[in-house]
C-alpha cells in the first residue's frame, strides 16, 4: 500500500474537520475491510486515514421499547448479530448479518462501514477508468454485466453490495449523520443515491459527514421477518440477489409489511407499490404468486442479467410462504 498518514481524532468534531479538508484526501477509516481493499487496488489513494475507532460513544448497542435499537456505527457485524435483542426481535437483520462476508470479516467490519461500502463492480475495482472514477464510459454496458443492476441504473450500472442495508430498509431504519456543524437524522431509504443523482457516491454523505448511529424502530409482537440471499459460492460471497421482508401478521392477514431487494439496483431497492399491496393481503400462495410477479416490473436488464428477475420474484414468493407458514 502507498504511504498515508494515520490521524487519531478524539471526537467526532475533530474527525469531521479532518475529513472535511478534502484537498488532503483524508478518508474515514473504521473496520477497514472495504477501504484497505480500495487502497490496495489503487481505487483510492488517500493522503491520510482518519481512524474512528478511538472515538468514544460509537461502540454500543442500546434497546428500549419506545426507541427500539440504537446501534453505534462502529459496532462489529459479529457483535451485532450476537446481540440478544437482535436475535429475538429482528430476525431479518440477524440473518442478513450472518450472511455477510466471512467470520473473520464480520469480526473486523463495522455496521456503519457496511452501509457506506463502495460497489464491487469489477470495472470499478479493476484497472478501468470508469464513470464512477471520473472517466467517461461505463464498461459494464457492453462488457461482462452478469452481476450488474437490472433497475435504477444509468449511466452507471453498479449494484449496492450491503446485505444489512436491505434488511434494515424493511425495518424502517434511520441513521444519524454528524459533522462539525451538528447532527441530523435521515431515513435509510433517503440515505442512498442513484447514479443519475450522483455518479461518484452511493449515499448522501458529504465530506466531513460521518454516520454515527443506526436506529431501528421497535417491532410489535406479531412481526415476523426474514432474509434470503442467493450467492454462487456456498461458503461466502456477495449477493447475486437477495430479498428481505418484515411483516406484521394477524391471523390469516398481513396487516402491513415491507419487502426490499439486494443485488438488483445501485441502491438497496424497495418498491412502494409492492409494500402497498402487502397491506391487508390474505395469506394464500396464489396471492404471493401474483404479488411477486409485480416485482421489478420496470426492470431493464443488461445482456447477461435478465436471470435476476425470475430469481428475485421466486425468492420473494418463497420468503413470504416461509414467513407466513406458522
Amino acid at each position, binding site marked *: *500500500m*502507498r*504511504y*498515508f*498518514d*494515520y490521524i487519531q481524532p478524539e471526537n467526532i468534531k475533530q474527525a469531521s474537520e479532518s475529513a472535511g479538508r478534502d484537498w488532503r484526501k483524508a478518508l474515514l477509516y473504521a473496520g*477497514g*475491510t472495504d477501504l*484497505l*481493499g480500495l487502497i*490496495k487496488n489503487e481505487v483510492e489513494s488517500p493522503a491520510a*486515514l482518519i*481512524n474512528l*475507532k478511538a472515538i468514544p460513544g460509537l461502540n454500543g448497542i442500546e434497546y428500549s421499547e419506545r426507541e427500539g435499537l440504537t446501534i453505534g456505527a462502529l459496532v462489529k457485524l*459479529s457483535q451485532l448479530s450476537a446481540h440478544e435483542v437482535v436475535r429475538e426481535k429482528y430476525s431479518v437483520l440477524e440473518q442478513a448479518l450472518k450472511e455477510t*462476508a*466471512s*467470520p*473473520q*470479516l464480520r*469480526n*473486523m467490519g463495522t455496521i456503519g462501514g457496511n452501509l457506506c461500502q463502495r460497489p464491487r463492480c469489477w470495472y470499478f475495482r479493476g484497472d478501468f477508468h470508469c464513470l464512477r472514477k471520473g472517466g467517461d464510459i461505463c464498461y459494464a454496458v457492453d462488457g461482462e454485466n452478469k452481476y450488474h443492476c437490472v433497475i435504477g441504473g444509468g449511466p452507471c450500472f453498479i449494484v449496492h453490495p450491503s446485505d444489512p442495508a436491505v434488511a434494515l430498509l424493511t425495518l424502517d431504519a434511520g441513521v444519524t449523520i454528524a459533522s462539525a456543524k451538528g447532527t441530523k437524522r435521515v431515513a435509510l431509504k433517503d440515505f442512498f443515491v442513484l447514479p443519475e443523482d450522483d455518479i461518484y457516491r452511493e449515499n448522501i454523505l458529504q465530506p466531513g459527514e460521518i454516520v454515527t448511529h443506526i436506529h431501528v424502530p421497535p417491532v410489535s409482537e406479531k412481526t415476523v421477518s426474514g432474509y434470503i440471499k442467493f450467492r454462487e459460492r456456498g*461458503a*461466502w460471497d456477495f449477493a447475486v440477489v437477495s430479498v428481505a421482508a418484515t411483516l406484521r401478521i394477524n391471523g390469516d392477514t398481513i396487516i402491513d409489511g415491507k419487502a426490499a431487494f439486494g443485488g438488483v439496483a445501485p441502491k438497496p431497492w424497495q418498491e412502494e407499490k409492492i409494500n402497498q399491496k402487502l397491506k391487508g393481503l390474505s395469506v394464500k400462495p396464489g396471492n404471493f404468486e401474483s404479488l411477486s410477479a409485480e416485482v421489478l416490473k420496470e426492470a431493464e436488464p443488461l445482456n447477461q442479467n435478465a436471470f435476476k428477475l425470475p430469481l428475485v420474484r421466486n425468492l420473494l414468493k418463497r420468503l413470504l410462504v416461509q414467513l407466513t407458514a406458522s
Partner: protein
Amino acid sequence: MKKKSVSSSLSRRQFLKGFGSGVAGSVALNKIASALPLQKTLEKAANDANRTPLNLSVNGKTYRLSVEPNRTLAEVIREDLQLTGTKVVCNHGECGACTVLLDGEAVYSCHILALDAEGKSVTTIEGLLGGEELHPLQKAFVKKDGIQCGFCTPGQIMAAQALLLKNPRPAKEDVLEGMSGNLCRCGAYPKIIESVLEAAKTD
C-alpha cells in the same frame, strides 16, 4: 548454482530465502538473506521519518515498535517480529491464510493495519505451541491428515482455535460455518473439518 556448505545452525527459513535468491542471481547465500531489494530499501528510508510508535502484544510478549501507518499487521508480524508462521497469500482479506486472533477473535492480519492492534492482544500460530509440545488442534490436524501442501494450515488452525474458544463442542455445521473464511487450494476441506471435530472431541 555453486554448491555452498550450509551451516547447521542456519534455520530452514533462512536457507530457503538464500536458496530462492541464489537461483536467480547466484550471490553468496548468507548475504542475500538479509539484503533488501533496492526499491524496498529506498521506500524504507523515505518512510523512516513517518513512523508511529506501536506497542504490540503478540503471544503474551509486548514489543515496542515503530511502524509506518500503511503497514499491515501481517507484514509487521512476519518481517519485524520474524513470526513467519502467519502466511500471506491473497493479501486481500479473502483467503484466510493470514488469520490470527485479535483479543480472541479471528481476523485477517493482511487486511488490518498494524496500528489497529495497539492495546489488543494478538495470538499467532506460534502462540499455540507449549514449548515443543503441539497444541491439541495441531495434533488433530496431524492425526486426521488435515493438510496437503500445508500453506493454508496456520490460518486454518487459527480460525479453528477462534471457533473452539467460542464454541468448544461445535456440530459439523458450526465447523463448516466457522471455517468458511479460509480457502484451501489443495481442497483438503473434508479432512480439515474432521480435524477440527477431532480437536473438539479431545480438547
